[in-house]
């Protein structure tokens, strides 16, 4: 009788483990903006004795391209992530609902503040169009991240996200 009970329990156990594995795999990774900068760009430039400190101000943009911030973190490609940020609307669908947007780390990037570098911007496409109420409110965006190399003057998007969910950010 004990054997029978345990035999019947086996599929239950397998199902349970399987489900929890699947759920664990589906758990999106919470991503912070600093984690989107590759290690190669985090190193401070070596200071040579007698040399001038770095004179390229962060806001000085080389015409046609950026001098920094162009490398993605390659291992983020294909990962399910959850990232907070501010929405810069690009396209709406026929009903006027938001469809495509850029996600940036701070509000006002599209208006009066200097723009963030390419690896601090995510180009997001929404599966389900959303009614955006404010560009000044932060949101959590969940979806699969894709990375692409930034090809110099013919600028490509470095980070692309196919979003499955957009939620309000609670402080």
């Amino acid at each position: 009788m004990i054997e029978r009970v345990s035999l019947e329990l086996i599929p239950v156990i397998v199902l349970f483990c399987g489900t929890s594995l699947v759920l664990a795999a589906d758990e999106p990774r919470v991503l912070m903006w600093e984690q989107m900068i590759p290690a190669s760009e985090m190193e401070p430039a070596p200071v040579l004795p007698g040399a001038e400190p770095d004179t390229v101000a962060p806001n000085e943009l080389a015409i046609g391209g950026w001098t920094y911030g162009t490398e993605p973190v390659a291992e983020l490609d294909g990962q399910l992530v959850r990232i907070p940020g501010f929405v810069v609307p690009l396209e709406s669908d026929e009903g006027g609902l938001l469809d495509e947007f850029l996600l940036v780390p701070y509000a006002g990037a599209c208006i009066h503040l200097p723009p963030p570098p390419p690896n601090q911007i995510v180009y997001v496409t929404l599966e389900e169009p959303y009614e955006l109420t404010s560009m000044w409110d932060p949101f959590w965006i969940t979806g699969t991240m894709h990375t692409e190399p930034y090809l110099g003057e013919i600028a490509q998007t470095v980070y692309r996200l196919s979003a499955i969910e957009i939620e309000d950010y609670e402080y």
Partner: protein
Amino acid sequence: MSSLTTTLNLAGHSLYNRRVTAALTIASIAISVALLLGVERIREEARTSFASTISGTDLIVGARTGHLNLLLYSVFRIGNATNNVTWESFEDIRSRPEVAWSIPISLGDSHRGFRVLGTNDDYFRHYRFSRSRQLEFAAGQPFDAVFDAVLGADVAAELGYELGDEIIIAHGAGAASFAEHDDKPFTVVGILQKTGTPIDRTVHVGLAGIEAIHVDWEGGVQRPASRRSAEEVLEMELEPEEITAFLLGLKSRVAAFSLQRQINEYPGEPLLAILPGVALQQLWEMVRIVENALLAVSICVVAAGLIGMLTAILTSLNERRREMAILRAVGARPWHVLMLILSEAGLLAASGVLAGLALVILVTAAIAPWLEQQSGVFITIQPPGVFELVIAAAVIGAAVLISLWPAWRAYRNALADGLTIRV
């Protein structure tokens, strides 16, 4: 339940007996519901209409004014620019490596109230609206010669123009102008298909055409001394020196940020670059306060309509005590009397809601052409959706709820009066 249908039947007859009062009550509910549904409908349609006017454009650039101003005059033909952009700045910016395509536009003239837009072939190639639709021709082709014009669908329909007709462009954007370019008529060579955007109400000509008609004009006046005929003008170099604004499509959407910044800091002249999506969102956020205020007012008006209904039922209670006694005499229980009052309220509200729905559809159909002309908002007549159903349910539910008060009164009266009453 047969008793429910009996009650409803009785309620219907009872209301018909007092049909004047009932009609007035229904009318007040109908008007208030129509107001609420109308406000919401126009809000939705305006949003959809504006959002679908332009698509796939990364930046709009013009002389430095303000975000909304630039968006409204360049895309929606509402408002005016305060200054122009030099052709040099345009050529410089459009030759940047990030730029995939560009569309120059020149505004300032009109034809019988319709705005004239000067542009080039890129307009027909690259302009997108309603997510990804391209401009298509109902007849004819894009302009080629200097004095060719392409009409939007509504211009041709309202003024009865066909291919080959001649039109005179006037200076300024008003409905009439006393400064016309009548020595240089344009020929209609193309008519666009209806788009449901301000394009339908625009006359398109080439930039060379705009230059040609202003060749002998200075300071908004045609100078007789330097007057040139149409033939003479065709011999001249018609390179544009200024345009009003231009649209840019970029090779990467992310590049919009940095290019926008460069244009805003352009040393050559004061320019402004906007992302159309962002500017539209700013427009909605500004308008949101007004929208919410309108919605709140509409809800108050519906409440007023329902209170009117409540008043009508309450005041009639006293006169109907004999009626209730008669009903009791033929076998009605007190709770039947309660149900009767509730059913009357429900019927009044339901009729009011239906009438309101019909009213809002009629009124929006009637004002749609006027609204289109005045503001570029295109209202489509749509069947009732989820919002309408929710409002209907809410109004009928609220009516039945508040009528519990007179229903309870009638119930108590029926109990107290029994079969004999002293009126």
